[in-house]
Every structure is written in C-alpha cells, then in structure tokens.
C-alpha cells in the first residue's frame, strides 16, 4: 500500500538493502573501525556515515556484494580522515604539553617485555600501531576481516601487487617489532 508522503519505491528499496547490509556487516565494520581508530564513539560515527552514504548511492549499486565493498571503502576512508584529523589535534596537544611525540618512546617497555615474556598480544598490537598506515590497514583487513588480496586491493584502491608488498613488509616489521625470534 502506497500513500502520499510515504517514501517512494527506490527509497524503500534502499531502506531494505541498508537494513539487510546493516544486519550482516554493522558489528564487524564498527569493530574494524575500532581496530583502526581505537575510539568507540568515533568508530560508530565513521561506520554510520558509511551506511548513510550507501543509502544515498544504493540506486547505483543494487547488489549486496557491491554494497559490502562500498561500505568497506567508506569505512577505511572515514577512519583515515578521522586519524588525520586526530593527528592535527595530537600534535597540537603534544606541543602544548611539550611531551615526547615519538610513539616509539612510549612503547619501549612493551618491546622489552616481549623479549622476556614471549609474544604478548599487547606487544603485537603496539607493533601494529607503529606500522605505516597502509601496512596496518592491509594486515587488519586480511587477518581481522579475512579478506582476499583482490578485496583488499579494492577496499584500499591499490593494486593487488601492493597488497602483497604491504602485507609481507608489515608482517616482517611485526616480527622484528615484537622480537619474535
């Protein structure tokens, strides 16, 4: 039954699609954003924005798989810009504090500790946090979302070859960063 003032069929279709994609992907994407941002509120914001954008673009996608890929791209872009924004604020805060701005300085103990205690999750996460953005993104997409190379390449808008390179460099850096051997 359609009456005046109700959303049109395209609108309803987008509502349905977003509702379905939400059920399938919301939690995992928020957690993906959380892994990238480490801020619960920001993570939900970024993923919510991605779903709202998906709704607006649904008529051009009309395919759940394409929708999921769209969401991943939007979340990664959103997280990256949130981090950039945060970087500005943090540099400002650091300059005010006069504190050290070198993440390595803060994480020294965990590397030291890992040598003693073996590989702790904390030391892995700390080492992951020290990686260049691309390497960190690739590793999280591969080992948290379990995406394949092609999907990662699509999500980050880079070539599959670069995915391979980032992944292997990232893993190598984690190994040395956590004093694995």
């Amino acid at each position, binding site marked *: 039954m359609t009456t005046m003032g109700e959303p049109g069929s395209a609108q309803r279709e987008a509502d349905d699609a977003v509702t379905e994609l939400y059920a399938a992907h919301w939690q995992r994407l928020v957690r993906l954003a*959380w892994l990238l941002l480490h801020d619960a509120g920001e993570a939900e914001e970024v993923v919510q924005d991605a779903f709202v954008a998906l709704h607006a673009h649904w008529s051009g996608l009309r395919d759940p798989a394409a929708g999921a890929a769209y969401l991943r791209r939007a979340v990664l872009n959103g997280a990256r810009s949130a981090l950039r924004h945060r970087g500005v604020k943090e540099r400002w805060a650091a300059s005010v504090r006069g504190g050290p701005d070198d993440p390595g300085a803060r994480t020294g103990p965990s590397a030291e500790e890992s040598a003693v205690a073996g590989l702790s999750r904390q030391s892995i996460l*700390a080492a992951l946090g020290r990686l260049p953005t691309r390497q960190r993104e690739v590793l999280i997409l591969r080992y948290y979302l379990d995406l394949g190379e092609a999907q990662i390449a699509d999500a980050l808008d880079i070539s599959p070859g670069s995915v391979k390179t980032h992944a292997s460099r990232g893993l190598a850096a984690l190994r040395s960063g956590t004093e694995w051997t």
Partner: protein
Amino acid sequence: MNDDERMVEALRGALDEQAALLEPGDRLDEILATARPSRSAWATSWWLPLAAAAAVVAVVTGVWLGLPDGSDPVPASSDLPLPTSSPLTSPSAGPTTTPSAGPTDSGAPSPTSTASTPAPTAGTPVALPVYYVATIGDDARMARLYREWLTVPGVTRQADDRLRARTAIELAMAAVPPGTDGYLRTWDGVELVDVAVTDSRITITLSGPGGTAFPEDTERVSVQQLVWTAQAAVGRGTIPVRFVLADGSEAIFGTQPVDRAYNRPASRDLYHYDLAPIWVNSPTRGQELGSGPVTVTGEAQVYEATVSWQLLREGDVLDEGFVTASDGAASRGTYEIDLGTLSPGAYAIRVYEPSAEDGEKVSAETTMPFSVR
C-alpha cells in the same frame, strides 16, 4: 608451524580479542532516519547533539599505544589471572587458578559438561565477555552490569555460537568469578535449560521464573544481564532475545514477561540503563603487568565526565587523583589514568564518582586488582 604462521596466528588472535572488547551500539534507526531527508526532522532533534558531542571527543594519545606499559586489555586464556581473594581487601593473589565454570558456592546450579569439559585438542580458549549484576555505589537499590572476561577450557574461538552462548550464560547465572565479591546472585534456583541461536533470535530457556527477593529494577537488569551476555557470546550484533520458562510461568522473577523480546538499549547513550557508570577495562582482573608505566583505561558515564581514582596497596591509598572522561554524562566515554611506574607488588585501582549531593557518599565505583612483577 613456522615463524610466519605463528606470527599470523598470534596477530589474528590479538585482532579478534581486541575487536571483541567493543560491543557496538545499535544505530540502524539513526542511519535510516539520517538517510531519509523527509523523515530526518524527528531524529535530528536528539541525534545531532550526539553527533556533535562525538566529534569533539577528546582523543587520548597513542592509538594502539594507549597501553604503553605492556598491559594487555584482553585476558588471553593463558594469562587470565584470577586471584582467589577479594579485590577490595587483598589484591595480592597471583594468577594461580584457571577459570572454570564450577562455582564454589553451594547451592549454585552446576554447569553442564559443555562448559566444563576440557577439549582434547590444544585449542586456545576464547575469553568470553560475561556480565554480572552489582550495586554501583552506596545506593543499594541501584544495580547495574559489570563485565568480566572468563575463559573455559574447551570453549575456543572455533566453538559454535550456541556453545559460546550457553557457556557464557551459565557463567553469568551460576559462577562467582574468582577475585570478585559483591556480584548479586539473582539467578539462584534457576537453571539454564537450553539456548537456541538463529540469525534473528536468541532463545534462552530457563527452568523457572526464579525468586522475587530483589527490587524490580534489579530484576530487569538481571534479565538484561543474560541479554548482553548472550549477544556478546554469539557476536553477531543485537539479535533480539526471547525467554522461555520451562515450567510454563509467564514472567521471569514474576515481573519480566516472557511474551516479548529483549534487547540491549538502542544506542550507546542509553547504555546507562543497563551498564554500571564506571568500568575498568584494563588492567583486567588480577592481571600481572610487566615493568614500565602503568595506564588504567575504562569507560565512564558520569556527571561532568569526571572520575576520581585511588591507587591502593593492601588497603592503603598510595596515590589518588581525578581524570576527565572523553564524554559527559550524556554518553559513555572512555578515560585513562597514568599511574607512572610502580614497584613490583600487588595493587588495586579504585575508580569512583563522589556523590554530587554529598561528597562523603559514592554514587558509583569499581575496584580492579592487579599486580606488577
């Protein structure tokens, strides 16, 4: 397994458990309302201030490095230390026990074999988030949920969602996590009969309605305890939870009807209906930290976003102060307390909110024992 494979395995585990620390709120309604220009008016009235608040969330330094001391926010199975003594009086016990579903108190329902039988394989037990009810401060009528991370041998990351849910609910109903006190035993006399999980519903069958000795709001929170626990264990978002009482009763505790679905609150800023205003997320209970600066992190939804803290050692206050959480009482924010470098020993961190009316009273608090080696 070569080094690469071990690294990958460890990375997967670290990411999974870090991710599981976050229970996303439900925002479908906001998304749809925001996406529909014609209908957004009603939503923006309350939604936009929330978005604005989130935009100015204070960001702690160090994304991954908020815990620069080597403290681990996730109690992995092998290092989930559960002291056997009360955290309030003696935070000194080390990681001597393996958490199990077996409650030591008499009268508690026994966990089923699914929860307590060690698996023959060497699968790493997964840390299950389990929620418990306790009074939040000096007001005995105000009970809310706290979260513990518990592992059960045989319940691994590969366990199916039904086993995870069953185990977690049994722990929630029956167990007293070692090293805790003050958790209310609202489910005494009730047993978990069955859990069924589909994509659209979690159905929890209980043996009966249970007692009626608690305030009605505490009964409501007890039902929510199982809702949060089941949803977290299943890990697929806010799937509505239905209850069935095997004896045919119509309301849990006589007050919470079973002819409706239950869910966690629709958004993070409503979580205060269910969750205690102050949580300590790390260190985890009884965690043994390495050398280096100690940072306490947690969540708070308190007046003017200010939480007070005390560092305790054998009951004595070694240090104290207050910090500001990332958000005011309107939403649940995060806070971080830098304790500096501590000498080896047993400690407890008490995080609390003094009453706004009476500085003597405490309106919300929690204490977490840990040690430094």
